[in-house]
């Protein structure tokens, strides 16, 4: 599929996701949450089920800092905590 193209042009594969892209966290504002999440995954051998609260916290940090459109956590697949007010 890429045969015969000019050498400067890059190949194309896949379609973009319809839901947009994360703005880059240039200032590293949510880096602490990311490191906690990575540490949890390392401790649990990559089991995502045990570390989901960390990823939820990371996304919440992104929403608070304006790096992500605020949305209900249920739309992102996280069940709300019983203690949170909905």
């Amino acid at each position, binding site marked *: 599929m890429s045969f015969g193209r000019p050498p400067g042009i890059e190949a194309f594969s896949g379609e973009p996701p*319809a*839901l*947009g*892209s994360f*703005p*880059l966290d240039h200032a590293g504002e949510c880096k602490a949450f990311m490191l906690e999440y990575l540490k949890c995954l390392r401790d649990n051998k990559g089991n995502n089920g045990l570390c*989901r609260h960390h990823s939820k916290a990371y996304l919440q940090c992104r929403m608070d800092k304006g790096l992500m459109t605020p949305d209900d956590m249920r739309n992102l697949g996280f069940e709300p905590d019983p203690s949170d007010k909905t």
Partner: protein
Amino acid sequence: MLSRHLIALPKKVPNAQWIYQPRDSNILLCGAHQSLCSSAGLAAKRNISRYNRIPLPSQACRSMASASAPSGSTKGSNSSSAYYLAAAIVGLIGVTYAAVPLYRIFCARTGYNGTPLTDASKFTRDRLRPKEESRRIKVTFASNTSDSLQWSFKPEMREVRVLPGETALTFYKAKNKSKEDIIGIATYNVTPLKAAPYFNKIQCFCFEEQQLRAGEEVDMPVFFFIDPDFADDPWMKDVNTITLSYTFFDAKYASHLIQPGYHDQQQKGTSGKPIITQGPSLGSLTTEAA
């Protein structure tokens, strides 16, 4: 036509064409065909005595003429078939050009050949419930950069084990190793190819220009899930590992990867509807980092 000094035509033969027969052969030259007639006529003018002129009904003459040489009607059908052939060639060339966008549309709709699906109806809330009874799928991450891009681009974690329907987060670390600001664009692919229709990304950093200052390092997240129908598909029984691979390109050479209108998409997050983040413009990126 021939002079009247030839053999006289018997008067009781109506509408006859002349047939000229050289006296020393059995060839019949039909007088209805112009070229044969003219050549026979010329020859006959020079050597009238060498030809016998035999009257024949005009229908017979015409059929002989068509058997001996192509007539006007066959010439017409030749040119019309040439037009059909030319039209077919032009049509096939047009189909060749149309095949590229049609193939892309086909891949996006069906997830063929590893193209992840981006249908927004797959992201409703009820699809995001983990299927507790199924096995955990190992999702590994791979990264590539184009040779012309001076970035180091690596996944922060090598693998994550997720259940179908469970949303997961992963990170890639990118560092601009050059001395100038570079804008990059990423594309991705999912293997094994048959699992690609089930791999849905809610948000990522691909297909949009990402600018890194000189020497800057940044973490890029990907938020994804595997469709819960994955557990029910018998074809996926042997799939235990899915690999998501990203490739970063320099935006200078890959500007055709940017999707128009993608940058400014935004929807309110109502129940059951997907959310779309508005990516900041490049101007606001620099002020944010300041």
